[in-house]
Structure formats: structure tokens, C-alpha cells
């Protein structure tokens, strides 16, 4: 695992260009709808585009064309930036997942075949992805454990820092409650026989890959509750801005559409709403970088 040192910078040109493309694709209302805060900003952007065109065609009540256009551009940039942040985080996650996957495939496993070609209990070297639940493999000094499993024979010190971040080695032994080992960790001394406890594609490492890719990243309960709170705030500010129109009428103060939309976007929690999903993915990314890849 230590050979796969990360070389990606934050703004790797390949990732950035992919993210830029994605940030435009994500403008599709059907995709953006899942993020209510940014979706309302997008609606505001569309309205500003219409207002800009309207002023261009001769309407004089909504301020100058340049004013409306600049607000339209600022809003567009806001939406694009939120999309870009999310897309960049996703792209980085994907790139990392690919590296991880490669790691997993490359790790050789010393599988014990009960009825071998020549001897009983013959050791075959197979790629770790071919290990099935119930298979038994053996690990010696300096081997990377290829899959999650339970020690059935022997005792070993294991470096689990790749998964837990704890740099002191731990002792694992057959029997008792300290018998399980995790794929991706490294044996530092002695020899153990391990029985595989997960099917391919379900191991701890696979779960991490899925998390980083964002494919199976379910929203956490807190994230759901936070979305509800943000939606509530957004609704309050919709009310505040809409009611300002009759208030303005009463005070004989006409307010331009551009001013309404600007006020609205300033009030709603755009920063957190726009970056929430990016934060989630980036968090996974960081966790992995700290514990797995950098080692």
C-alpha cells in the first residue's frame, strides 16, 4: 500500500477540467433540485436573465441593463461555483477510488488450498479479489492482509495504522475477542492463518471505496436534519422578500426585481447550502488520505 503515494494536487488540471464540465451539466434543474438552497438561487438567476433581456428591449423601470446583467452574472457564478466545488470533490473521490481499487486487486493473497495439486494444504498466490467467504489464507512478516477475516491459528503484531490511524502495532491472536483482522493492514511479525469473513465487494476496503466515490454515500441523519433547517430558513426568506413588495408599495418606494433577488440570495444560507455536499465528499477524502493512502 505504501507504494501508492498520492501525487494529486488540489487543482490537478485533469480533475479541474472535468469539474468545470460537470458544473455546467449540474445546472440541469432536475439535478439541482436535490439541493433546495442552490435551486432557488438558480431560479433567481433565470429570472435575472429574463429581466436583463427585458431591460435590453427597452423597459426603463428595472434599472440599467448593465446593472441587471452584472447581477445575473454574479448569481450564475454563485451557482456554478457551488456546482464546481461539488464536482471537484466528486472527481477527486473517483480518482482516489480508482487508486484504491488497484491496490486491492494488486495485493497478493497466499491462499491455502486444502486439496492442492501436489500436497495437502498447498499455498497458492492469488489476487485478493478472488478470495471468497470461508477461504483460508496465510500471512507472514511484511505481508499486507488481503481481506477482512478472523485468525484461526497463530498470533501476530499488526500495523493497523492504515485503517485506524493508530501508529502503535496491535496484537491479534486466534480465539478470544481480538481475533479479527482488516484488509489493508500489515503484519509486522510472526505468521497467522486467517479465515475470510466477507465476500468480495463487501469488505471494509470496498465500503471505503464506495464512500469515497459518493455512490453509496447516504446522507447522515444530521445532514438530513440540517437540510430541513436550511429549507426552513430559505422559506422564511422567500416570505420576507415577497412581502417586501406590498410593504414597498405602501411606503411609495418601488423596489426593482434585481434588488429583491439580490436581497433574497444574500439572506438565504447559500454558503452552507452550496458547499454541503462538497463538504461531505471532501470529509471522506480527507479521512482516507490521512489513514490509508498516505501510508
Amino acid at each position, binding site marked *: 500500500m505504501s507504494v501508492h503515494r498520492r501525487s494529486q494536487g488540489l487543482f490537478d488540471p485533469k480533475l479541474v477540467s472535468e469539474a468545470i464540465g460537470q458544473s455546467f451539466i449540474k445546472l440541469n434543474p432536475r439535478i439541482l433540485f436535490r439541493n433546495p438552497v442552490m435551486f432557488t438561487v438558480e431560479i433567481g438567476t433565470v429570472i435575472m436573465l429574463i429581466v436583463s433581456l427585458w431591460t435590453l428591449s427597452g423597459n426603463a423601470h428595472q434599472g440599467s441593463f448593465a446593472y441587471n446583467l452584472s447581477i445575473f452574472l454574479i448569481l450564475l457564478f454563485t451557482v456554478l461555483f457551488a456546482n464546481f466545488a461539488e464536482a471537484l470533490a466528486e472527481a477527486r473521490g473517483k480518482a482516489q477510488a480508482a487508486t484504491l481499487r488497484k491496490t486491492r486487486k494488486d495485493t497478493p493473497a497466499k491462499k491455502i488450498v486444502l486439496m492442492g495439486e501436489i500436497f495437502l494444504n498447498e499455498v497458492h498466490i492469488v489476487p485478493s479479489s478472488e478470495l471468497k467467504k470461508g477461504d483460508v489464507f496465510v500471512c507472514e512478516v511484511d505481508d499486507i492482509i488481503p481481506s477482512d477475516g478472523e485468525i484461526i491459528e497463530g498470533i501476530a503484531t499488526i500495523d493497523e495504522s492504515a485503517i485506524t490511524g493508530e501508529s502503535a502495532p496491535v496484537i491479534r491472536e486466534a480465539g478470544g475477542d481480538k481475533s479479527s483482522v482488516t484488509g489493508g493492514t500489515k503484519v509486522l511479525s510472526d505468521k497467522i492463518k486467517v479465515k475470510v469473513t466477507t465476500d468480495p465487494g463487501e469488505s471494509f476496503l470496498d465500503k471505503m471505496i464506495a464512500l469515497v466515490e459518493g455512490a453509496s454515500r447516504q446522507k447522515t441523519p444530521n445532514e438530513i436534519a*440540517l437540510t*430541513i*433547517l436550511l429549507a*426552513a430558513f430559505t*422559506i*422564511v426568506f422567500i416570505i420576507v422578500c415577497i*412581502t417586501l413588495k406590498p410593504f414597498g408599495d*405602501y411606503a411609495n418606494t418601488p423596489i426593482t426585481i434585481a434588488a429583491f433577488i439580490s436581497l433574497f440570495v444574500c*439572506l438565504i444560507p447559500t454558503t452552507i447550502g452550496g458547499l454541503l455536499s462538497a463538504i461531505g465528499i471532501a470529509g471522506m477524502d480527507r479521512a482516507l488520505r490521512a489513514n490509508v493512502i498516505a501510508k
Partner: protein
Amino acid sequence: MNAELLGVIVMFVATLLLSVPLGRYIAKVYAGDRIWTDVIFNPVEKLFFKLSRINPTKEMTWKQSLTAMLTINMIWLLWAMFCLTNQSWLPWNPDHNPSQTPDQAFNTAVSFVVNCNLQDYSGETGATYFSQVFALMFLQFASAGTGMAAAAAVFNGLKERTTDKLGNFYNYFIKSCIRILLPICILIATIHAFNGTPMTLKGMDTITTMQGDTVHVSTGPVAAFVAIKHLGTNGGGYYGANSAHPLENPNYFTNMVQMIAQILIPFAMVFAMGFYLRRKKLAWVIWTVMTIGFLLLVIPTVISEVNGNPQIAKMGVMQPNGNMEGKEVRFSSYATAFWSIATTVISTGSVNGMHDSFMPISGMNMLLGMMVNSFYGGVGVGFLNFFVYLIIAVFIGGLMVGRTPEFLGKKVEAKEMKIASIVALLHPFLILVFTALACYFASHNTNMGWWFTDASGKHGASGWLNNPSYHGFSEMLYQYTSCSANNGSGFEGLADNNPFWNITAAIVLLFSRFLPIIGPVAIAGILAQKKFIPESGGTLKTDTGTFGLLILAVKVIIAALAFFPALALGPLAEFFGMK
């Protein structure tokens, strides 16, 4: 001047000193502990439960509690409607007052059921002794009892155990009325009767003035009415002038008693929570947050009232007593300013001066008090409103420190956040949307038809404003804010006794009363069902000053962001216009 300031401070400190033991007593009442008052009240309660065939020991789920609450409120509403629309022929009408019109009766009945007491009528001519006693005064007890019973159900749900039962709602209700409200009311009413407040059924009195004119003076069962009006934070006056009327609030002493009476139970409920859940420190944190909010509003108000009106000062007139327009000389500008904020942060809404005549900053602070609606708040419901902000603050705080949000050992999750958000959303929604509606009609002078007719028979909507410009806007904003906060005080100056204002206000009242009760009770019910997690090093401490500050910040941010534009067009614009 120092004596007047001292008077205000004495009022506040006296309330605090009385409310702590009262809180302990309330906690004991709700916990069902044995108290010395059992001897007197047990037989009375048994009689009630026997007559109504209610088993007070049978516990209810949160849904059953709410069904019970809504059902009895519905029946009270119909009863009050009946009394008010038929009062002309019902007994106890020595002054021959007419029955109320259906829209006015609807507004009045709703506003008394929901503990608001908006009063688009004047008590002297708009209601008979029968209505005052059996409809209005009865509802003042019942609505206060409802709020307290709902709070008791929430206390019960926050205990350290897992259950789906929140106690018996009827039991809490009866106990709140009989053991808490009634005895204190008898004391307050007696004090008032000895200070000259009438307590009679004889009808109008006639006096001959020094000039030889004959004047008819309305009397009635005023002393009893005044007591529950304040203790239950109802605020509906017996007379139209409310507590500014010399018979309803004869002197500085009764003014103090009324002041203490209205703050007493909102204070005591917070302490009761502390004693009931054995979390005294949390109770003190909550009380301190409320008090800071209260002081932030009351200090600028007192200062701006005592300093007087800059426009009058420009004319070279001395104002040694401060801004005395719309104030009673016997109460001074200190006590009146203090009262005006107390009555708005708490949902009393009784007045002892004319809020319309206060300085713009004072008007804004009154509005803010109602917009936040949980610096103390009404009996029971004040704590419930605070509870909603508490849940939001716990959630935000939990996320900020990276912990799963917990309150009193129960996890706060999406469902609770949904309910809390809806309740927090409701208040700005009702205030802003209805004010916007009224503004729209007024600015376009819409022909309102049946909905509105002004004194000269015109239907134009701008006719309901007696003051143009910013002040008129404040009046409309105040009316709906007062409704949505279930406060009931009026800025006045608005022609509000007509179908449009009566009916829209009643709609706002119904929503803003019952959803904020349903929400917290539901949250408490859901939290009660969850597993109790004992406090550990990782728990976000809710009984610290830091957390108190967070709650205050949440309230200020929600109120400031939602209401600032409206306030800027009303009182703030007026304030800068007066300079």
C-alpha cells in the same frame, strides 16, 4: 426620579423572589406529590372528575393529549360564541348592552380561547356581566390552564425514561386552574377590591361632578376579572381602556400588584421545569437568557420614554416627566415603559398607557418582544416557544462541536427538526403575509365591499388607517404581530372592528395558538419514546452560559433576519424621521 426607577426594580425583584417558591409548588402539583393544599383541593377535584367521568390517573399519549386539548377548546369556542351573540337577552345585563355581531363575536371568542384577548369591542358597552363572567372570565382561566397543562405534558415527556405516555391532560388542566391559578387570583382580587376596584352586579353608577353634570360610570365584577387577566397573562381588560382605567387599576400599588401578577407564572414555570426535572441549573440558564432579552428591550424603552419627545423639545417645552402623551400621571413614565415591554414579551397584552403614543424605539421594542415571543412568554406557552428555539439551538450547537445533537439524554433527529422548523416558520409567515395583505389593500385603496366600511360609509381600504405613512404601517404590523404572538395588546389607531380585521385576526390567532402548542408537545412525545442516553463527557452541556448565549443568538438571528425589513419601514423609519 430615583424613586420611580426604584419602583420598577422592586417590582422585578419581588416577582423573582415570589416565583422561585411558586415554581417549587407548581412542580409538586404536576408531579402529584403531597402538598399542604391537598386538604382543600382534593375534594373539589374529585367532584370535577366524578361529574365528568374522567379517570385522572389514566395516562395519555401525546396524540391523545392533543386531541383532548383541541376538543375542549372547540367546545369553549362555541360556548363563548353563543354567549356573545345572545348576550342582549341573557341575564345579568343591567346596562342593556346589545349582542355582538357574528364577526365581532367570532373574533372575541377566538381571542379569549387562545389567551390573546384582542378585544375589538369596549367592555363597558360591548359585553354584559354574563358574558364577562361566564364566557370571557371563564376562558381566561381555561386558556391559561390549557397552556400550563401543555407545558406540564412537555415536562413529563422530558423525564429520564422511555415511555409513550405524557400524563393525563385533564388532570394537569384541572390542577393548574384549581391549585395554582384560583388561590392566587382570590388574593389579587381581594387586594384590588380593597383598593377601590368595583366588584358588583348592580349596573352603572351615577355620580354628580363638581360642575353639576351627571355622569354614568360602568361598574361590574371588575376585581375578579383583573386578577385572572394578569395572572393568566390574558390581558383582556374589563374596561376598554384596560389597566389605564382608574377603576381597573386605581393606584401605583395595584399597578405593582398587576405587574407582578403577570410576570409571576411565566417566571415560575421555568423554575417549575427545573424542580420537576431536577435540572435547576438549566432552569437558571433559561431564565437568564430570557432576562437578558427582556433587559435588552426594556432599558432602551425606559430611556426613550423618560427622555421625552424630541419634536416637543424642539418647541422649547420642558418634559420633566418624560413623554407623557398617552400615559397616566399616577404610574409615571418609568412604570408605564416597563409595563409596555413586560406586557409584550409576556403574552399578556394588557396596557396601562397608549402604545400608539410611545416613542418609535419603544414601539419597535414592543414589536420585537412579540416577534421573539419567548422572553418569558405567556403562561405555559412561553416555555413551549422557548423549547422550540432550544431544540434548534441544541441541533446547531451539536453540529458545531461535532456531536450528535442531544437534549436531556434524548437524540434530536430529523423528525423533531421538521416540527421545530415549522413552528419557528409559522410566526414570521403569519405576521408578514397578513401585514402584506393589509398593506396591499391599503396602498391600492381597494374596494373591500362587505369586509370593510369606514365611518362615512365608504369601502376603500385606506379608510382603516387613522395615521398615514410609517406610523400607519406600524399599526397594521402591530395588529398581526399581537395576534400571532397571542398577545392582545393593540397599537390602536386602526379601525379594526370590521369583518376584514376581525376575521383575518381570528385566523391568525387560531393558527398561532394551536400549532405552537401541538409542535412542542409532539416533540416531547417523540423524544419521550427514545432511548435515554446517560450524560457523558461527549454530551453537549445545555446548562452552561455558552449554550445560553447560543440560544439567544439563534433567537436574535431568526427574529432580526425575518423582521428587520418590516421594522425598517415602520418604527425605524419613523424614528429617523423624528430626529
